C-alpha cells in the first residue's frame, strides 16, 4: 500500500505554523517516512499547476494555515479542497481568523489608505495603490485582489478538522498526525484538542478563590505578577477559563495570562462574547457607574477577547462600515 499523500499550505498568517511543523524536531523524520509530502510551497518548490494536475481527492490530508484575505488564497483554498480528502485547518488564523482577522475592524479602503499612505515607513506622495492589473512592457502583470474582509478557512471551504493554537502545540499536531495515519478519526468538524478549558491544566487553579470578584483590571506591564497565584485573581485578563486546553499552559507557565489562541470549547458559539460574559459576571460592583469605570479599563474589548477569533464571531466584522 502506498504512503498517504500529504500537503501543507500557508495563507494569511505569520508563518509560525510552518515553524510548528519544524518543531516536531526528530519526529518530523517519522512523518516524512510515513507520508508522501506532495505539496509544501514553504519548504519545496510547488506551483499551483502541480495541484491542478492532481486528481480530485488525490491528497489524503492537507494542513492549511492562515486566514483568507486575497482572491488568490480563496481560489487555492477551493482548489485544495477539491484535491484533498481531509482538510485540516491548522492554527488560529485558519481556525478562527487569527490575528489577521482583526483586520475586520477596518474596511479594505481604510487599510489600503493607511498602509500605502499614512504608515510611518511609507513615502508615497502620489498615493500609488497596488493595482490588480498593471501594464508593463512585457505585457500585463496581475496581482491577487485584496478582498473586503478576512475569513477563517471554514468560511471559505468545508473543513474536516481543526488544529487550534497560535501556533498549534506540537503535542496536538503529533496526535493529529497519528490519528490521520491510523485512520482513527473523530467525527468531522472536531477540533483536535481537549474539550475542556485551560483552567483544567493550569498549575495555578488551586490558588483561584471560590468567590472571585473582579474589582480591577491590570495590564501585565503594570504589575509584578505573582508566579504562583491565579492570574485572574491578580486582576489580569487571563482567558484561561474560556479557552481550550491542550497547549500545556506555556503562557501561564511563563507568567503571562492566556490570550485565547486555542479558541473556545465545542459548546460555545461566540468565543469573545463567552469570555466577556464570564468576566463581566464576575465584576463585584452593582452600581452602573462603577461597572462602567471597570469596563473603561478594558481599553479594547474586541482585541482583548477576540484577538484570534474576530471573523468567527457572530458579527464577523465591524458593522455599518
Amino acid at each position, binding site marked *: 500500500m502506498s504512503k498517504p499523500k500529504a500537503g501543507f499550505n500557508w495563507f494569511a498568517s505569520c508563518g509560525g505554523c510552518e515553524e510548528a511543523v519544524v518543531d516536531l524536531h526528530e519526529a518530523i523524520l517519522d512523518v516524512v517516512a510515513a507520508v508522501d509530502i506532495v505539496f509544501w510551497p514553504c519548504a519545496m518548490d510547488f506551483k499551483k499547476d502541480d495541484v*491542478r494536475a492532481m486528481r480530485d481527492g488525490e491528497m489524503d490530508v492537507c494542513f492549511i494555515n492562515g486566514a483568507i484575505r486575497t482572491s488568490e488564497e480563496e481560489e487555492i483554498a477551493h482548489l485544495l479542497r477539491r484535491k484533498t480528502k481531509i482538510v485540516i485547518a491548522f492554527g488560529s488564523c485558519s481556525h478562527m481568523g487569527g490575528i489577521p482577522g482583526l483586520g475586520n475592524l477596518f474596511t479594505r479602503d481604510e487599510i489600503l489608505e493607511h498602509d500605502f499612505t499614512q504608515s510611518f515607513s511609507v513615502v508615497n506622495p502620489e498615493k500609488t495603490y497596488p493595482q490588480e492589473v498593471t501594464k508593463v512592457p512585457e505585457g500585463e502583470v496581475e496581482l491577487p485582489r485584496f478582498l473586503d474582509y478576512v475569513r477563517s478557512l*471554514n468560511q471559505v471551504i468545508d473543513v474536516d478538522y481543526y488544529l487550534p493554537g497560535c501556533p498549534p502545540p506540537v503535542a496536538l499536531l503529533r496526535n493529529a498526525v497519528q490519528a490521520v495515519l491510523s485512520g482513527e478519526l473523530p467525527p468531522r468538524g472536531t477540533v483536535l484538542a481537549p474539550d475542556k478549558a485551560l483552567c483544567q491544566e493550569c498549575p495555578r487553579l488551586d490558588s483561584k478563590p471560590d468567590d472571585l470578584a473582579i474589582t480591577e483590571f491590570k495590564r501585565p506591564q503594570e504589575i509584578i505578577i505573582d508566579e504562583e497565584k491565579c492570574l485572574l485573581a491578580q486582576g489580569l485578563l487571563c482567558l484561561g477559563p474560556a479557552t481550550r486546553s491542550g497547549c500545556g499552559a506555556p503562557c501561564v507557565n511563563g507568567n503571562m495570562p492566556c490570550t485565547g489562541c486555542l479558541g473556545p470549547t465545542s459548546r460555545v458559539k*461566540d468565543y469573545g462574547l463567552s469570555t466577556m460574559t464570564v468576566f*463581566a459576571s464576575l465584576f463585584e460592583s452593582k452600581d452602573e457607574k462603577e461597572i462602567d469605570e471597570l469596563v473603561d479599563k478594558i481599553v479594547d474589548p474586541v482585541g482583548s477577547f477576540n484577538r484570534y477569533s474576530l471573523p468567527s464571531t457572530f458579527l464577523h466584522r465591524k458593522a455599518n462600515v
Partner: protein
Amino acid sequence: MSDAAAFEPRIVAFFCNWCTYTAADLTGVSRMAYEPNVRVIRVMCSGRIDPEFILAALREGADGVLIGGCHPGDCHYIEGNYKMLRRYRLLLKYLRAMGVDERRVRLEWIAASEGDKVQRVVNELTWTIRELGPLALPVMPQPEGAGASEESALAEANA
C-alpha cells in the same frame, strides 16, 4: 430613506419570568396595545441571558434586542439582574467598537406591576429602530458559495 417607511424592525425580547414577563402579561390583560414587532422569549431570570443569545438574535436577523429584568434589589433570585447589568455594560462597549448602534440593544428593569412600561419601552425601541433602519450585518460568503464555482470555472478554463 424611502425604504424606511416599508421597513419593519424585528425585535427579540428576553424577559425574566418573574417581573418583566409577568408585566408583559399585565400589559395584555390591560389591553394596552403596542407595536407588534417584538417577540418575547421567556427565561427564568435576566441572569440567564447570555450575550451570545443577544448577538445570535442580531445575526439571525433581529434589528434590535430588548432585555427585561426585575428592578435592582427585586430579583427573584436575589441578584441575577446585576449580573445581566454588568454583562450589558460591557456588551455595549463591544457593540460600539463593532459599529453596532448601541440603541439597538436595550436593557430595562420592568416590575411585574409595570404593564404600562412594557408598552412604552417596546414602542420606544421599535420607533428608535425604525429610525435607525435595518441592522444589515455584513454577511460573508458561505462555503461552496460563489467563490467555489468561480474557481471551478477557472480551473476548467485553465485545464
